[in-house]
């Protein structure tokens, strides 16, 4: 049942990326291109996507938080609260990669459906980057290792 619920959630997520146009790297880059604001070519759509998603998720999370989940015993809300160097450095590296081609992990994986060669290269490189991070963390201290297995998302 958990796998089925997750399949449905992944499907709805994918529909959302498709309907909003965020499956297209050019649409994402159109938002990130803030220097296009003076010429009138800036595309604020991504801000609307985020606002709508935040409104629904914010309200939904608030509604379900006092309850218990339907298919597992407890919610796994992220617990980390400190702003540390890995968070900041990771966000910078991710932002650079995102800005270079306009792909973040969700649309990248969803675009595998189009079997585009450059897309496959991106996803393979992304997987290598993730595995490289895990390998690098595993060589660190035990404390680092604990942090490596925590995730906000």
């Amino acid at each position, binding site marked *: 049942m*958990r796998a089925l619920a*997750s399949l*449905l*959630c*992944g*499907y*709805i*997520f*994918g529909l*959302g990326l*498709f309907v*909003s146009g965020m*499956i*297209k*790297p*050019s*649409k994402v*880059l159109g938002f990130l291109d803030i*220097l296009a604001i003076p010429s009138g070519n800036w*595309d604020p759509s991504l801000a*609307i996507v*985020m606002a*709508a*998603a935040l409104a*629904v*998720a914010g309200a*939904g*999370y608030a509604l379900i938080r006092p309850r218990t989940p*339907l*298919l*597992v015993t407890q919610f796994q809300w992220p617990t*980390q609260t400190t*702003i540390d160097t890995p968070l900041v450095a*990771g*966000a910078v*590296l*991710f*932002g650079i*990669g995102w*800005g*270079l081609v306009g792909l*973040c992990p969700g*649309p*990248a*994986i*969803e675009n595998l459906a*189009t079997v585009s060669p*450059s897309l496959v*290269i991106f996803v393979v*490189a*992304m997987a*290598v*980057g*993730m*595995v490289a*991070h895990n390998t690098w963390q595993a060589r660190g201290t035990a404390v680092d290792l604990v942090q*490596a297995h925590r*995730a*906000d*998302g």
Partner: protein
Amino acid sequence: MANFTPLSAAIGGGLIGLSAVLLMLFNGRIAGITGIAAGLLDPAGGDRGWRLTFILGLIAAPISVMLLGYTVPGPDMPASLATVAVAGLLVGFGTRLGTGCTSGHGICGLSRLSTRSIVATLIFMAAAMVVVALTRHGIGG
């Protein structure tokens, strides 16, 4: 703002938010693509079933709309293959180091008003905007 599509953006965004709420309601999990995908790649990671089906659902969405006769645009990336590969590495490594991406921090984290996620989102947005400014309007642009 010739390319601005507020209605489809709002509907699509609403669906993404709904997905995040349902995954928490059913499975008690954050709908962060980085965390979900990385768990599949970790040899020590268990709990693979729901992660795999989420990814399959994500890929099934555009396939299903294609079957209904809609056109799914290919990923339009004008960048060279080398740039695409470097970008992929940075996105993979960076999202793991920063424990999240646009979905985990940008949507799920901001909805929880997580300070970490607010900081991460502002930083990766700003970094991406700087890169686009440089590649589209910078030297030679």
